């Protein structure tokens, strides 16, 4: 199957999984933000350019199923995917631990950016949510899921160097 076909399958599957499965696998009432993980892993595996595009598409998908301003997740996703993608050269020399640490810290940064922008845009309902707990939980869960997500993203973006291979 061609790469565009694989990446479409991945993106559509993740939308359905986020909408249908994520609410059932909550931890302490907090569900994973799998589409954010897709954005970050897109950057890790594909580099800044692909990371920005994958992050944007994942963000649009998230915008479709939430009621926050439309485009806010797309903005967060493309910035997060691109930022993580800037470290792409480092990932080709690093290991799983590096991916995991990056996913945790980038998830926290992306969620903080999203929450800050949303609050600036008057989304006051966010103040009622346990924001710190959401950021911490989602970041940890994203970190734990990173090895699987990286493998899947590598399949979707075939041709990218293997994890740990020299640049």
């Amino acid at each position: 199957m061609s790469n565009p076909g694989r990446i479409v399958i991945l993106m559509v599957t993740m939308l359905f999984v986020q909408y249908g499965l994520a609410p059932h696998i909550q931890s302490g009432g907090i569900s994973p933000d799998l589409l954010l993980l897709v954005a970050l892993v897109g950057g890790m595996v594909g580099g800044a350019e692909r990371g920005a595009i994958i992050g944007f598409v994942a963000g649009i998908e998230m915008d479709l199923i939430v009621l926050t301003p439309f485009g806010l997740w797309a903005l967060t996703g493309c910035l997060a995917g691109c930022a993580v993608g800037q470290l792409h050269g480092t990932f080709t020399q690093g290991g799983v631990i590096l991916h995991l640490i990056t996913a945790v810290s980038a998830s926290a940064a992306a969620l903080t950016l999203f929450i800050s922008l949303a609050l600036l845009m008057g989304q006051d309902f966010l103040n009622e949510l346990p924001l710190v707990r959401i950021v911490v939980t989602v970041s940890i869960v994203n970190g734990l899921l990173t090895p699987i997500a990286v493998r899947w993203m590598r399949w979707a973006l075939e041709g990218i160097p293997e994890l740990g291979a020299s640049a």
Partner: protein
Amino acid sequence: MAQRGRTRRILILLVATSITLLTLDFRGSGSTDSVRDGAGGIVAPVGGFFDWVLGPAEATWNGAFDYDDVVAENEELKTRLASIVANELIISALERERDELREMLGLEAHMDLPLVAARIVRTSPTNFKPTWEIDRGSDHGVKVGHPVIVGNGLIGRVSKVRASSSELQLLVDPNFSVGVRLSRSGEVGIASGNGRGQLLEVGLLAGDVAIVPGETLSTSGLEGSSYPPDLVVGTAVVATLNVNEGTQSLTMAPAVNLDQVSLVAVLLWEPSVLSDSPPEAR
């Protein structure tokens, strides 16, 4: 170098697109709502499928690992059921009396409204969606604005409708407001939400009205109101006098504990007369 320049151009393009989408959404063009509705129609059946597949497993898991909670909840429900049965006897006697009085005074009955029972199927697919979804939609006669109740207590309104599901705006939502009437004095004010877990706030009450803590507040049902009269909204907690304006504000506890709601009823009720004030506030 050329690669970096290309990446920068793509990033600028994507950011600009995102900002354009945000601007369109803020300007209320309606196009983003249509896209969301369309997407909702596609993903909703998938969500239903996951609920159907995982629901029994989830119930088994909860039964196995939260057994003590289930037993405690069962005991509490038994106690509440006994209390409800006792109340039903009192209520049926009061209803008979009410009907007789209504007949004597020639008043029209307004509580025999058609309704649709619905189950709350999802609370949120992400951590950032403050609405509930129910398993009834336009196919069942549900429309945007229909009041949603539990028992005789108002919990919100329908904010979005699809063919077989709808989204609710809860009365604790900061953007929600409803006209209310105090049970003792008949004084009318406007109640608005303050967020989940917070008390509601009632404003525009006359300064000289005596308000008793625990007093019931119901929908005012004034002409053109978005809600029928006499739906219980909450009970008075603390009244504060605003000396400068000669008015009182009141904090109010919602009548229904939203943490314990799994079934709701949508009243197929629409206001008969419209006035100039915003619909939420009536």
